[in-house]
C-alpha cells in the first residue's frame, strides 16, 4: 500500500499516463531539435535549408 492504494494500482496509473506522455515528449524534443539545427534538412516541413 502506498498512500492507501495498492502498489499495482499506482503502477497501472503511472504506466497509463507515463507511456503516452514519454513517447510524445521524445518525439516533440527530437522534432524541435531538427527544426532548430542550422544547415540541416528539416524534419518538420520536409525541406532542406538553403545552402
Amino acid at each position, binding site marked *: 500500500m502506498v*498512500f492507501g492504494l495498492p502498489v499495482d*494500482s499506482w503502477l497501472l496509473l503511472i504506466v497509463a499516463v507515463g507511456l503516452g506522455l514519454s513517447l510524445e515528449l521524445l518525439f516533440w524534443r*527530437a522534432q524541435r531539435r531538427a527544426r532548430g539545427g542550422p544547415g540541416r534538412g528539416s*524534419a518538420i516541413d520536409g525541406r532542406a535549408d538553403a545552402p
Partner: protein
Amino acid sequence: MTSLTIIGVLVGYLIVLLAIGFWGRKESGDLRGYYVAGKKLPSWVIAFSSNATGESAWLLLGLTGMGYMIGVHAFWIIMGEVLGVACAWIWVARPFKEYTDRYDSITVPDYLTERFRDTSHIFRWISAIIILSMVMAYTAAQLTASGKAFDSFLGTGYTQGVWIGLGIVLFYTTVGGFKAVAYSDFVQGVLMLACLIILPIVGIVAAGGWGEMISALGAQDPALLDPMGSFGLGPAGIASAAGSVAIGLAFLGSPQLLTRFMAARDQKQIVDGGLWAVLCVIGFDVGAVFAGMAGRTLYPGLLDPETILPQMSASLFPAFFTGMFLVVVLAAIMSTVDSLLILASSVVVRDVVQQAMGSTWSERSLSMLGKGVTVVIGLVGLAVALLEVRLIFDFVLFAWSGIACAFTPVVLCSLFWKRTTREGAIAGMIVGFAVTVLWVELFKTGFYDLYEMIPGFFVGLAACVSVSLLTRPNAEAVAEFEAVHESVGPLFRA
C-alpha cells in the same frame, strides 16, 4: 434565485458561442472554408478541438460514471486514451497532413479516393453510409446527454433538454462552419479541462482527503481499488482491460479527428499540437476518473452513476459554479455534436453530391446545401434521442467503434504500407464495420462482453492486408508513398 444564477451563466456562455459563430461565418462561404476552415488553424486550436471532439459528454458523464462504478479499473481507459492520442499525433498526423495537402483534400473519403486512384467513387459511397449511420447514433447519444444534463441541473425535463441542446449547436454550426466549430471546441476544451481539474480536488477534500476517500472506497467494495476490478485476473478481467485500452485505437483513424490534422496550417502546428493534446487528454481522463471515485465516497448508491457530476456540482459548489458545470457538460456535448454534424454534412455534400454525382452547383450553393444537410441530420439524431433513452457510455462506445473500425485499419495501411491496394482498402472498410455491428448483435455477450473495437479493428486490418496481398498496388501510388515518407522525415532522430 439559484436557477436564475445558473441560467445567467448559461446565457453568457451561449452569447460567446453565437459570437464565435458570427465571427466564423466569413470563412463558411465555400466548401474549403466551411469544412476545413481554409486549412489555417494553429496548433493549440487543433489540439483542444481534436480532444474536445474525441471526448464528448462521454468524458464528463460517462467516464466519471465509470470512475464511480469501477474505481481503479478505469485507469485502463486512461492508458488507452493517452496512448491513442500520442500515437495519432506522432505517427498518423504528419504523413496524413502531407498527403491531404498534396491532394488538397477536404474530407477523408477525398483522401482515400486520391490515395488509391479510385475513379468509381466507391470510397465516397461506403464512407457516406457508414458515417451517416454512426453519426446519427453518436449525435443521439450526445443529445441524450443534453436531455439528462438540463434535467439534472435545471429540472427542465428530458425532452426539453434535448431540444435546447440541439437548437444551440445547430445555430453556430450552420452559421460559422468548421472555423466556428474548431474555435468553439477550443473554448469548450479549456472549460472541460478546468472543470476536471477543480472537481476531483474539491471532491477529494469534501470526502475528507485522499486517505479517507481511499479507505471509504475500500470499505464499500475492495474491488474498487483493484486494477482488475470485480472481474479479477481471469478472461473477463483481461477482456475488460483490453477493451478499455482499445478505446484509444479510434484516435488513429476516425474521420472527425483526422479532419483536424487536415485543417492545420502546416506541419509545425502538428508537432506542437501533439504535446498540447497529450497533456490535455491526461488532465481530462485522470480528472474524470478521480472525480467519479470521490463521488462514490460522497454519494454512494446513486441509481444512475452517470449523474454523479451534476450531483457533485450542485452539492459542493455555489450556484455560479453549478452554472459553470452545466456549461461544461454542454460544452462537451456541443463540441462533439458540431464536429459530427459537419463531418456528415461534408460527406453528403462534398463526397456524394459534388464528387460522386458530379454536381455543377456553385461553391456557395453547395455550402448552403451543406448547412441544410447539417440541420436535417441533427433533426434525425434528435428523433432517435427522443424515442430511446440509453446509457450514454455504451451508446457512444458503439458509434465510436463503428466509425473507427471502418476507417482506422484502412487509414493506417494507406499511410504505412505501400503495398495497400484499392481492393484491400474497400474490403477493410466493409469488413471492419460489419464485424463491429455483428459482434455487438451476436457475439459480445458470449465473449465476456469484449469491446467491439477489438474484433472490428483486427478483422478489418486482416481483410485489408490479405486482399491487398492478392491484388496489385498502383505503381504511381507506390512511388508517391515513398516521396511522402521522405518528405515527412524521421520521427525520433534529430
